């Protein structure tokens, strides 16, 4: 019997992401992820937990299409991404917002330019960019810092710019790797509320975190727990707990 946990593993028309028996190894090393079978449904809020080295970042990399798996099948937005040609992947990436653990802001661009980046990459005309960027910076409380360079922003401010950049394109999935790792508890809670607000608008949110306090602040979240590269349930929640 397969030991891996299979939350909602039944194929679902409503799923936004389906992993089927996915494995990942780097080079010839042992697998960092094994037998991952999971279905993520639209509009749900997932916490990805696990000890350091359990494979959280690797799983997130598969989710935001930075990596192809070594084996298994990944379906996203109804498409089999294993057989999808490389040239087609950018259009799927644009439907995914990513908050990196280390922010990854472009150092020579201002906060405004960083947030505008996904819109510009999607080919939106300049006249349609300024307004939403200003709105989203206001939403994360950084409208007064829009011209600041990343180097002149505090850790928390950089984090909020990264979040604003991740959500500016109204992604269908938001993937965040330790998004509150560099901010104080008060700011962490504030950021969680931002994710919640986005989730209420229908975005599927996946947050990798060690922060138990953060998880406790969200009623009935879906927990995806990784142990040594395998997915196990830690805190089972019923579908009634979904935040649709």
């Amino acid at each position, binding site marked *: 019997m397969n030991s891996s946990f299979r939350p909602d593993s039944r194929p679902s028309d409503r799923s936004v992401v389906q992993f089927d028996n996915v494995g990942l190894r780097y080079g010839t090393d042992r697998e960092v992820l094994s037998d991952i079978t999971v279905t993520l449904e639209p509009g749900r809020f997932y916490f990805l937990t696990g000890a350091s080295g359990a494979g959280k970042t690797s799983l997130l990399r598969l989710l935001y299409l*930075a990596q192809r798996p070594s084996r298994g099948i990944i379906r996203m937005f109804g498409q089999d991404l294993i057989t999808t040609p490389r040239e087609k992947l*950018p259009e799927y*990436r*644009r439907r995914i917002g*990513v908050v990196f653990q280390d922010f*990854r802001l472009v150092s020579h661009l201002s906060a405004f330019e960083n947030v505008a*980046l*996904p819109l510009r990459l*999607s*080919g939106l005309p300049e006249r349609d960019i300024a307004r939403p960027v200003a709105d989203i910076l206001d939403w994360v409380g950084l409208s007064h810092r829009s011209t600041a360079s990343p180097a002149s922003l505090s850790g928390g401010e950089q984090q909020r710019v990264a979040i604003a950049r991740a959500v500016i394109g109204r992604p269908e999935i938001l993937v965040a790797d330790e998004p509150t790792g560099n901010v104080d508890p008060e700011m962490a809670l504030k950021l969680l509320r931002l994710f919640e607000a986005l989730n209420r608008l229908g975005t599927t949110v996946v947050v990798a975190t060690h922060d138990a306090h953060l998880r406790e602040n969200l009623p009935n979240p879906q927990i995806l727990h990784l142990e040594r590269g395998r997915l196990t349930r830690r805190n089972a929640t019923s579908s009634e707990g979904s935040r649709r």
Partner: protein
Amino acid sequence: MRSRWDHWERIEGWVQRWRGSDAAQGLIPRTRLAGPIPSVIAVMIALSVMAAAAALSLSNLAHNAQAEISGGVTVQIVEADPTARERQARLALTLLGGVPRMYELRRVPDAELNALLEPWLGKDFATDSTIPVPALIDVRLKGQVTAADLANLRKVLAKKVPAARVDAQSTWLGPVFDAVNSLRWLAMGLIMLIGMTSIAAVWLAARSAMAANRATIEIVYMLGASDHQIARIFQRSAARDAALGAVIGMAVGLGAIAILARQFAALGSGMVQSAWLTGGDWVAIGAIPFIGVAVAFLTARITVLSALRRML
């Protein structure tokens, strides 16, 4: 049926896509990308322009000279006795006058012959009967002289003008044309080498720019940038740098051509004049900077696209 408005919307769509991709230009800091490309391209374009001008000049020289002498035959009457030489020369003129395709027949006057030999044999050699100088007859046929034509001329003269020696002018100048053609090929080879060096320089610059901006590339890639969007950033930058280098290189190359042309013009030689560049040649030389920019553009694009496939 499409209305004019539909077409306008399509045009606006293209403009928007162009502007959208243009907006991504600021992703790579300008100072990091420029590097040595402008100066390398400037040197390459200057060398290419000079090499091309040399190749085209030599080509013109060879072409014009060959056209001039292609129908030419020289008949020498090699006879030590001046009386017999004179008699045979006159007879040869009569016999050659009846040859088919004869265009021009002229005996080179003794005065002209003496003037040609004077620099080597001295002023008084004409009066010194101990130095026999052959009589020369310049023959010009319509069209190119073939081996059959030469055989026919020899046959015509063989019986009655035994001292006649018949040679095609092109045979004499054959080694000179071979040398000119070798120089022309050398210049073309040089242009090819310069082109390959330019490609290598752009390839290295593009790769080094990519390595320097790897972090930014990874970020924009994860945000949904396509390979072509990323490549566009580098290819445009490479083209812009190459254009700057091309302008400088073209100016230097043209300056060098002007100086050389002035020096050769001072020689006042007819051979040099036949090597002047034509309007078509100037168009070809003028195309070199554009070709240089296009090569830099394409090299950067191909380099970046192939590197991205390996990198991400």
